[in-house]
């Protein structure tokens, strides 16, 4: 492995430099919010102020009357499908007669200035009849439907082995995960340009160009090729750009005004305008024999999907498939619900259902260890999944599953020394100077997690890439969305490696020139688009080596092996491959104030093969930051359907003073059979078990149960006060 500083040729295994790194650091990178076009006007969306309401009437007259306003559109102006959605088109472009979550789009305006557009949106008169919001996920299962399609997005039962089996030792618990936001820096923004011929070109920061395009075209009532999407500079994604946000509105406005239309969400609008991580409530019961071998895992998982379907169904499938953790579990009974409420829609976020389940199954493993009087790491070792074991879905794990090695290397990493004279800034409470050394406790927690790579359960997942060699220069065309993960670097590395050329150019990703690359999610682009680029480059190499003259061009559509949906017992070969990681967190906790400082997170991760060391480290550190955030501070605070903290003032994400040292104990390189270069995706595992490890460390420091993340200061301080009062 080579790190930065050294000269690298930029082949596989080296820390090749990002082609967009320089411009991003220098501030010259063009983000979607920087786009402009001649004659451009500005869009703005009017959003509903209630979580649940009936729309009696909408009067757009006062908005249209404002000077500078070019168009005001409502549900009546949508020429094609009135709703969109990734899996199930149930989210209205504009609320028609019913509003189902706070911030739902009701109308859109185009005007000659963003301020005029916003003022015009506010001038629209909407007569609402407020309705009682349905905000409890559990209640939603049986409540009066708040949508014609019902309140249950998905209900799944996994019956594995002998569901009546029981163990000598049984531990039980209820767990809860709050609503996390992806909190990317670059708010949603885009530019739609009408082509003068009934079609439109849309420049957007997004995660999946082709599926955006299809949803937009369906709503516009246009053939798909009349809508062309190009990727505009993305300022972070983490799942929140998988769903359509402003895409349809922008194109509608552009076609109506026959002008380029630009829109940039404010931060508040961004929080209201994209999906979040599903809040979860989970009940678990673990059975083990006297030696600590798992006999059965029972789980009931309820995910709050919010108002519209988005990816609730596959998130639930993941939560249930990985509900027992990366352990050999002979028997299991898992029941999952993903339901509709009047809370904000929830969908994809890094970890995709595995994060919620991991928090619960790892808390259970600690509880079980305590009940058995076993070391928590030892208990995990005794049950660690290995190649050849089965998931609770009955599927045999055929690829690399180095769980034992991950646990051993991560738990064996030396603990950080306690600083006898710490800088007060590095104590819990940090800059606030609250810490009292005698009231601080250190705790260590351990967690292991896993999830699937790529799309599962029968989805035909593929990516398309073209490689063209001309004059010793290779050009790659692929619609994979670069959202910061580094596919751009990797595509260049792969082509350099295969073709032995120095200069590789990446064509701008778009829908006009090439087929779908699939979504930049599910830790899949290195495998899927990396695979497509490799195969196309290999085909070019073969023709070149056969003496053919340049230009040589090859296009390759890469599919992963087929999977199948789960049957009625939740059994089936639904997944292609899995990725594992272990985390050990060390925290200092102020017992009286409940403030936490995460001192260090050590990790071992299963990576198949390191293709770019620096990028792997970047994903590990960034993912841990997001995991630490969920453990101790990141939460969208809901109050009867109303979002209370739609800003970075109050939606807190870790600062440099909250970010722990990250120690990479091991990147385990056991090549994955069937994966291009043997490499696994690395983006999600750092987020899956890091939150659970931090929570475990806080439990260890305080002796409190702490069954909910984020762990809030009051959860620690008041519980600690009450427990010492009783003692």
């Amino acid at each position: 492995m080579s790190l930065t500083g050294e000269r690298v040729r930029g082949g596989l295994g080296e820390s090749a430099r990002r082609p967009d790194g320089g411009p991003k650091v220098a501030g010259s990178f063009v983000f979607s919010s920087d786009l402009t076009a001649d004659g451009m006007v500005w869009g703005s969306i009017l959003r509903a102020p209630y979580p649940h309401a009936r729309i009696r009437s909408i009067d757009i007259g006062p908005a249209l009357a404002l000077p500078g306003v070019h168009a005001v559109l409502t549900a009546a102006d949508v020429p094609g499908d009135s709703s969109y959605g990734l899996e199930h088109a149930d989210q209205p472009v504009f609320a028609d007669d019913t509003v189902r979550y706070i911030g739902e789009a009701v109308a859109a305006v185009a005007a000659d200035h963003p301020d005029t557009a916003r003022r015009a949106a506010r001038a629209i008169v909407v007569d609402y009849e407020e309705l009682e919001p349905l905000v409890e996920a559990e209640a939603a299962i049986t409540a009066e439907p708040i949508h014609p399609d019902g309140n249950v997005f998905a209900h799944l039962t996994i019956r594995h082995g002998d569901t009546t089996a029981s163990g000598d030792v049984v531990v039980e618990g209820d767990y809860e995960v709050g609503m996390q936001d992806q909190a990317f820096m670059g708010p949603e923004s885009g530019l739609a340009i009408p082509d003068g011929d009934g079609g439109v070109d849309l420049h957007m920061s997004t995660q999946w160009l082709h599926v955006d395009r299809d949803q937009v075209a369906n709503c516009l009532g246009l053939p798909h090729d009349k809508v062309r999407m190009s990727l505009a500079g993305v300022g972070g994604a983490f799942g929140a750009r998988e769903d359509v946000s402003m895409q349809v509105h922008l194109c509608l406005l552009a076609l109506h005004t026959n002008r380029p239309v630009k829109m940039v969400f404010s931060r508040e609008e961004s929080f209201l305008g994209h999906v979040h991580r599903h809040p979860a409530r989970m009940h678990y019961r673990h059975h083990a024999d006297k030696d600590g071998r798992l006999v059965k895992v029972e789980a009931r998982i309820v995910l709050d999907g919010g108002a519209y379907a988005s990816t609730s169904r596959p998130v639930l499938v993941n939560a249930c498939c990985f509900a027992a953790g990366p352990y050999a579990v002979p028997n299991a009974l898992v029941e999952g619900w993903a339901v509709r409420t009047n809370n904000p829609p929830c969908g994809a976020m890094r970890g995709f259902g595995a994060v919620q389940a991991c928090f619960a199954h790892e808390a259970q493993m600690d509880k079980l260890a305590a009940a058995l009087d076993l070391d928590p790491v030892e208990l995990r070792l005794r049950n660690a999944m290995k190649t050849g074991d089965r998931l609770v879905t009955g599927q045999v794990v055929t690829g690399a599953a180095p769980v034992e090695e991950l646990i051993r290397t991560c738990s064996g990493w030396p603990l950080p020394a306690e600083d006898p004279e710490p800088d007060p800034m590095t104590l819990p409470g940090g800059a606030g100077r609250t810490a009292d050394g005698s009231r601080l406790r250190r705790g260590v927690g351990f967690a292991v997690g896993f999830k699937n790579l790529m799309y599962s359960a029968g989805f035909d997942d593929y990516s398309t890439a073209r490689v063209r060699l001309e004059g010793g220069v290779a050009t790659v065309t692929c619609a994979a969305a670069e959202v910061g993960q580094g596919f751009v670097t990797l595509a260049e590395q792969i082509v350099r490696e295969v073709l032995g050329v120095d200069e590789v150019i990446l064509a701008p990703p778009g829908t006009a020139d090439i087929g779908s690359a699939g979504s930049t999610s599910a830790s899949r682009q290195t495998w899927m688009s990396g695979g497509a680029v490799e195969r196309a480059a290999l085909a070019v190499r073969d023709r070149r080596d056969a003496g053919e003259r340049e230009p040589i061009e090859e296009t390759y559509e890469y599919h992963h092996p087929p999977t199948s949906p789960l049957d009625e017992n939740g059994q089936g070969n639904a997944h292609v491959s899995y990725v594992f990681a272990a985390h050990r967190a060390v925290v200092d906790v102020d017992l009286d104030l409940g403030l936490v400082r995460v001192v260090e997170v050590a990790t071992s991760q299963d990576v198949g093969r390191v293709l770019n060391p620096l990028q792997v480290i970047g994903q590990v550190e960034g993912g841990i930051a997001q995991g630490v955030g969920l453990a101790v501070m990141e939460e969208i605070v809901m109050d009867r359907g109303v979002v209370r903290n739609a800003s970075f003032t109050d939606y807190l994400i870790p600062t440099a003073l909250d970010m722990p040292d990250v120690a990479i104990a091991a990147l385990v390189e056991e090549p994955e059979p069937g994966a291009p270069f043997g490499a696994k995706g690395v983006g999600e595992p750092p987020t899956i078990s890091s939150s659970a490890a931090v929570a475990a460390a806080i439990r260890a420091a305080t002796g409190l149960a702490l069954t909910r993340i984020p762990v809030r200061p009051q959860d620690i301080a008041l519980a600690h006060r009450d427990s010492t009062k009783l003692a």
Partner: protein
Amino acid sequence: MTPSVAQPRSLDDAVEALRTAIDPTVLAGGTDLMVAINAGSRRPTSVVSLIRVPELQGWHRDGDEVVLGACLTYAEIERGELASLVPALAQAARTIGSPQIRNAATLGGNLGTASPAGDSLPVLAALDATVETIGPDGVRTLPVLEFVTGVKRTALRAQEIITAVRVPVLRGPQEFLKVGTRNAMVISVVMAALVIDLDGRSVRLGLGSVAPVPVRARDAEALAEGSVDWDTARIGDQTVFGRFGELAAESTAPIDDHRSTAAYRRHAVSVCARRALERALR
């Protein structure tokens, strides 16, 4: 509509600009005002910027007091000689925002905003600071607890501005503690500012984020004052510290909101007040 912006270069010009402008909004570092404007919650018709008015800059010593210009930034407060003269204010300044914010944000702006979570306010309350203003009715001087009248409400009259804040230089320890849900760059959930005046034999505790306005914990102060051995500047009775915290908590009226709960705030006040007193007088 773009507002008109006046950039006076003297206090007289500033007063004149405020008198002649229509519904003027005062701008200092802009770290509150620009956020409000960008969010669309404030739309000034005219702006008077104070940032180039020399009389409002910096600080100077005036006998037993220091006079802090309204445009004094936290970056200027947090270090140097001023930090040793008014240590609690410097400690508070170091908790505010990020270095970039502290370079721009001013003391006058914190008072002008008068947020319950304004970090300088409990310190000014503990110091019995006075706020000096100038306006159409001339110059006024108000104790800080009379200046802040409610949540984001002050005693400032139309076209009046803060010119300076006057605080005493005291002999004795000072402490500022701030609780937030992250280790930096965070809005206060609770603040406690403790000032000991060894010569005046007083103990003063200002609390923030626990009521609409900063509060003084008078009962706690009286308990501590009665318990200090003023010759050694120590409290011998070890039960006093905990009781001090409890009395401090009783003087608050916190609320439940999206940042925390009333129960936690009350508890955190007792912990912070106790720790502050222990650091200062144990």
